[in-house]
């Protein structure tokens, strides 16, 4: 008896879903309505922290866009759907966005499996998928509706290798990397560049994202007797490795990828991350006006909190989206074409961002060589550590 009730409940709710979808289709976008972007990303689940950081960057950018008069007088807004970075949910969200006429383009998802599983739907549905953290080399090969401002690792890693080998003079390196598509691609580009610059790779170790204990890995590193450690990590695992490296008595120079650039890296790493070198795309005292505006605005909006790399990516992405919509209007195809047209969009990561139409990515990320001094990120003064 009560089962039938529940079955009806399920059916009923499905019907409600359909009705809702039909309703949104009927409600045509009016000019007073904001221009709506779809965002597919993790708000719950193991990657939830990155979704929360995205929001901060988006909201700051939107405040500035609206203060400057919006998009030809209209406001810009986004609808954030939680995918948990799970491909099953990201494909459903993709269909939801594609069949919702109010959505003019999509941003995200976070992880490669979730993003690239949804790509065929966006491509066939003719809705731009703007993956601003998707460094997977095949992401933009999904079709001409896939665009990315994510820094290509083919660009970033040679910069890091140059910092470690040419500037810091390290000759024999141990590379620790996250064993994900990002970490693996990065490692390969790094190793190639470092060898070109004349360094020897003593050992490379890939670890899974959930790993917390690195002591045994560090014994392997010690036995390879490198003169420098390279961390291709995010801030939380990077901080763990640095701490444990110092605990097991490794005193070598540590050089990390830009993804550790976050106040959390300093907080979680404590004294152990002192003198860690890192290449980044921008830094606190950066004289560039767009960076000054970003950091100052962020601190005001979020109670003095320092922005990190993921905040910068999402801030840039929203500004890029605004620039594209300004040219392309609200037509989905025109928006795709507008990506090829936008020029020199002010960007924290690139200074000025222009898409390479061939690869649908942006080249020429800015580069700054930082080091942690007295618990703060500072521009490297050229002194050895």
């Amino acid at each position: 008896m009560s089962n039938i009730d529940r079955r009806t409940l399920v059916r009923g709710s499905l019907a409600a879903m359909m009705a809702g979808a039909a309703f949104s289709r009927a409600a045509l976008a009016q000019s007073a309505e904001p221009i709506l972007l779809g965002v597919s990303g993790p708000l719950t689940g193991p990657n939830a922290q990155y979704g929360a950081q995205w929001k901060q960057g988006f909201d700051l950018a939107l405040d500035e866009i609206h203060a400057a008069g919006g998009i030809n007088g209209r406001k810009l807004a986004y609808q954030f759907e939680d995918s948990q970075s799970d491909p099953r949910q990201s494909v459903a969200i993709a269909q939801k966005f594609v069949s919702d006429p109010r959505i003019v383009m999509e941003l995200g998802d976070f992880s490669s499996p979730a993003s690239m599983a949804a790509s065929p739907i966006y491509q066939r549905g003719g809705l731009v998928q703007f993956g601003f953290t998707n460094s997977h080399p095949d992401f933009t090969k999904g079709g001409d509706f896939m665009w990315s401002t994510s820094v290509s690792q083919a660009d970033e890693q040679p910069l890091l290798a140059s910092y470690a080998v040419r500037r810091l003079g390290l000759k024999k390196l141990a590379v620790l990397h996250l064993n994900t598509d990002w970490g693996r691609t990065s490692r390969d580009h790094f190793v190639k560049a470092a060898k070109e610059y004349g360094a020897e790779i003593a050992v490379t170790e890939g670890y899974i994202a959930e790993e917390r204990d690195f002591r045994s890995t560090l014994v392997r590193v010690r036995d390879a007797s490198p003169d420098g450690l390279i961390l291709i990590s995010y801030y939380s695992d990077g901080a763990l490795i640095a701490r444990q490296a110092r605990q097991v008595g490794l005193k070598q120079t540590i050089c990390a990828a830009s993804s550790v650039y976050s106040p959390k890296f300093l907080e979680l790493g404590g004294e152990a991350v002192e003198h860690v070198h890192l290449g980044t795309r921008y830094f606190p005292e950066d004289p560039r006006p767009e960076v000054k505006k970003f950091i100052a605005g962020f601190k005001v909006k979020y109670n003095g909190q320092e922005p990190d790399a993921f905040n910068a990516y999402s801030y840039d992405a929203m500004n890029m989206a605004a620039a594209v919509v300004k040219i392309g209007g609200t037509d989905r195809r025109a928006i795709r074409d507008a990506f090829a047209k936008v020029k020199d969009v002010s960007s924290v990561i690139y200074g000025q961002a222009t898409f390479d139409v061939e690869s649908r990515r942006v080249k020429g990320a800015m580069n700054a060589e930082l080091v942690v001094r007295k618990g703060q990120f500072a521009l490297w003064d050229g002194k050895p550590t």
Partner: protein
Amino acid sequence: MSSWLDYTINGLIVGNVYALVAVGLALIFGVSRLINFAQGSIYLVGAYIGWVAVVRLHTPLPLTIIVVAAATAVVGLIIERFGLRPLQNSVRIAPLLATIGISFVLDQLVMLTFSPNPRALPSQLPDVRFQLGGGTIGPLDLLIAGVGLTSALLLFVFLRYTKLGWAVRATAQDRDAAMQMGVDVNRVNQAVFGIAAALGGVSGMLVGMYYNQIDTAMSLQATLKGVVAEVVGGAGNVPGAVIGSLLLGLVESYGVAVFGTSYRNLFAFLLLVVVLVLRPNGLFASARQAPPEPLTGTFIAPSRPVRIPRWALLVAAAAFAVLPFFPVSSYVLQTLINAWLLGMLALSLTLVAGTIGQVSLGHAALLAIGAYTSALLSLTLAVPVGLAVIGGGLMSAALGTLLISPSFRLRGHYVSIATLAIGEIVSLVILNWESVTRGPIGISGIPPLSLFGHDLISPLSVYWFSFAVMLVLALVQGRLLGSHLGRSFRAIRDDDIAARAYGLSLNRYKSLAFIFGGFAAGVSGGIAAHLYSYINHETFNTQQSILALTVVILGGLGNVVGAIVGSVALVGLPELFRIAAEYRILIYGIVLLLLVRFRPQGLLGTI
């Protein structure tokens, strides 16, 4: 040579950390024969309460420990009283599902309160380091070891020499007999949950201090490693859990030493499978110990299934078949496609878990095998997609059955743990076997579904295709259940000794069930691969296995229609709750708990 000393020390240090969780799990398992999936969440809660105490209230360490222990003990008592006690007379599997629901709710509450950003939890001990081998250890290492060993010792004494301890052991051995002897079983359970939760909370806090880092993702990992360590030591055996943890730490450390970091967890789970196969009761169970599971199949209690008239099923099937003719959005269709794909997985699991009683927690591995086989067949050998998907199903049936066959001699919870380990092993092999699977880079550019040369691209055609495949599998399975074979399956589930006495070959029937189930799951994975166009080792993860099990229990074990209804519900509900944004998984957890509470035998009942 000195490196080996370092690897040994490091293994013991991390084993020490695992022991804290394993002891709590062992205690609860010892009394209520329940793998408490919420233990990792209590560990998480403890870590965050510790953070509040240390960073906000500036409590000294002894007081911090007391605060955390007291607060998490209360959480444990609440879980016992309101989450588990109402279920004590229902199916044995209901509490398991309840702990999964509770862990969702607790994890989400912590995430909503504290934001998902990781936080630093500073250690309150002086920062002195002692040289040991090539590395150093700090006072926190000693404190963790001290807490682990002391609590194991105290528990051992408590269980052996106190009256309440006797009551605990009596309850563990035979709940009904203990009740007849006047033991207040509820009080015993309460005591055990309180102690285990306090221990879990304190360990979360100490481990957080150890790494100077706490975040909301730490809960599942803690549970996984804790379960492995506990089972290696002998489920329910408290000192065994400590030794099992140290052993686990050592095996991982030596694995890293010999093969490299990316093989680390592979060794942890291989250890588990080997121990389960050779010594199913764990390394330290005495030969005379009573079997850890009841002899006859009370793990899955029979219930009266809801009879659905044939015409109603026909109407429902017809309604879903013609649904795309109505003005429904592609989003609804895509959501239902997901439900049909999950439905195939659930059919597979409801057969092996419900009908023949092998509750698998590693079913996503079958998806992964099917997906990789189908993707690689179509990409590298240019096999037509339709055939490649079938190939994926066959490979999943063959390889899955082969991998699971060593665990055929296991019972009840042990099957679940063995399959959990096998699932992790498959995922790690995919990650490391780069020449075939392309490792973490994954496989991209998988061609879309196609049938007889026609690409199935529109949501409409994929919808019909997946619905038809699921329907065929469901019909075949329905026939199977009504046949002689189905009755043999259920006989094995309900009483394997009696079934054997009647001359049924258990291994052969279990293999048959896994072959059929593996095929259905493999086909589901294959279709998903072509739908997504990109897969890597993270696409089919542990969460999917847990979801599949939830579907099956929710629908009613062994119940074909139930599996499908459950899939539609569990794919549909989180989508319906989208409006709630960050709160949706919390709501989902609560709904799950309510369903388990009021309908533990599943919506449609066990067949």
